[in-house]
């Protein structure tokens, strides 16, 4: 199952679900509530949830999952071209 899937897919999923698990667990275990914990003076969820998880992590994954396969494809093409040249010379 999932044979041939680029390993970066699993790395990205680990980042996404790992961060989600950490933040959710932290929220559940925070005794007072999320409002009383602040980052840069604002309630922490505005930063780690509504900016970091919503936008930064999502955009990073969106980028990661197109950039890495594209680079792998480019390298394969270049390797194929080099092999072809060698074969022609031989």
């Amino acid at each position, binding site marked *: 199952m999932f044979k041939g899937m680029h390993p970066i897919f699993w790395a990205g999923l680990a980042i996404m679900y790992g961060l989600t698990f950490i933040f959710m667990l932290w929220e559940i275990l925070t005794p007072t509530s*999320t409002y009383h914990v602040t980052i840069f003076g604002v309630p922490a*969820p505005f930063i780690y949830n*509504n900016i970091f*998880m*919503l*936008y930064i992590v*999502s955009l990073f994954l969106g980028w990661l999952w197109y950039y890495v396969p594209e680079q792998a494809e480019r390298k394969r093409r270049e390797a194929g071209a080099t092999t072809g040249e060698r074969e022609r010379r031989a």
Partner: protein
Amino acid sequence: MGANPIVVTFAVLYFVIMFGIGWWTRKAALSATDYMVAGRNVGPVVNGAALASTYLSPASFLGLPAFIFIIGYPFWWALISIILGMPIAALLTAAPLRKYAPVSFTDYYCDRYDDQVGMRILISIPVIVSGLLYVTLSTIGTALFMMAILKIPYVWSLIIASAVVLFYVYLGGMVATTWSNAFQGLMMAIAAVTAALAIIAHFGGLSELGHAIYQNNPKFWLPPHSRLGFSHPLVAGWTGMVSVFFVWHYGFATMPYTVVRFFTAMDLNAARRAIFWSVVFGGAMYWGLIIIGSAAKVVIETLHPLMQTFGAKNAVELLGGLQKMYGTTAAAATDYSMIACVEALKSPWLMGILVAGGLSIAMSTTAGWLVVMNVILGRDWMGKILKNKWAQENPVAVLRMWSIIVLVICTLFAVKPPAMVLDLSGWAFVVIIATIGPPLVLGIWWDRATRAATYASVIIFLPLTLFSWLYARQVLGSPHWFFLNKAFGWKIATFHQDYWIFVSFIVFILISLLTRPARPEIVQKYSIDLRQD
């Protein structure tokens, strides 16, 4: 209270642009391929904006801020998960399906499971059921915006909304849908971000906004299991927050109205890059919706001009008053919270941008579903299953005919929708992923996926998800409680009975292991070959 001329101008400009796109694309969609898949020539930015606007429906624009209004902070995770779930599609379904390059959503199932007629009928059933519900709800969403902001009577709003969507889908098919959806994707993001910035500016910053929300409702920020209580009974325990996360998380990779957009990309790389851009547009809009939904209660209660007129003691009473004033039961009172929140800021420019954004998100989903439905009903059913000669010889005409039929049926439903129809949108989403999600994802990524397991998925999970959803709604009072709570004396929340998504994948795997696999050449062509770049 009439509509402000500035607001009306924004709405008129929006409609002119929509008509313009329909007229401009009418000649670009004369062939069947162009009409159905936009000639497979759509670039990543346009496709990304179109993907975001198609996937995110009025349920997002009105419903999700309303859920935050009702449930409080823990519901933020639902919005985060929807955007986090979008990139998953890049490697899971978008690239393989673009490589396969089908025309209809059902094509892949027919080829992969080597069954051209039975599989087409089977897969189209949950798609048509969900599609009818979604088109009805999106049409209602468009009409609600026109009624609440432009003050046009509800039935007239419905007729205008349907006529505009039909105009550009009829003329330009997928080409018009792509360009209009791309424009709508931009508009919805601008509208939500602008409204959110206005709210933050009103309070003087995020810190002050957070404090005002706390002062207004100290329970808003409480996560599950807090010693201080809970923001809503559904999120008193961790299952509520976790299930909120997974309700819409996998939809982007498997829902028909997003999957067909992958078919239109110019190549594999464009399909993957489009998803990055859909996160850019969708994520921006959701950032705004979280701010609006969180601030709605305090903004309405402190600023809305009708609080005194209605003699309302709180925001819920005001929203109830608005619902009575509009005289329609097409939406829950809390669904007006987002519009009322922005309205309370008393800026006609802001309302003008909001009406354009609201109309955008509602009409884009209607159009997105229409192009899925007209291909399934016109090409698949009439052309391939019933082998109707006229449909085979006139592929564009038959799609146009079905666009009209579907939209007329859904508009008639939308005039006075039973409350059940409105509620069923949550089921419509889960049923699609639970029935046709496993055969799609595992069909690509697992050699052993079988036809028998696909039949079993639809036959088992279509009625089972509906039963559990209706049982929870009728007996437990909400479809968000786990349906067996009463039998076991539990109090577990599982939003929209979304655990069925995971159960259906397990059942699909087990049945596949017990049944005969597809022929090796089929597996090679429609599974193994599609996984390679």
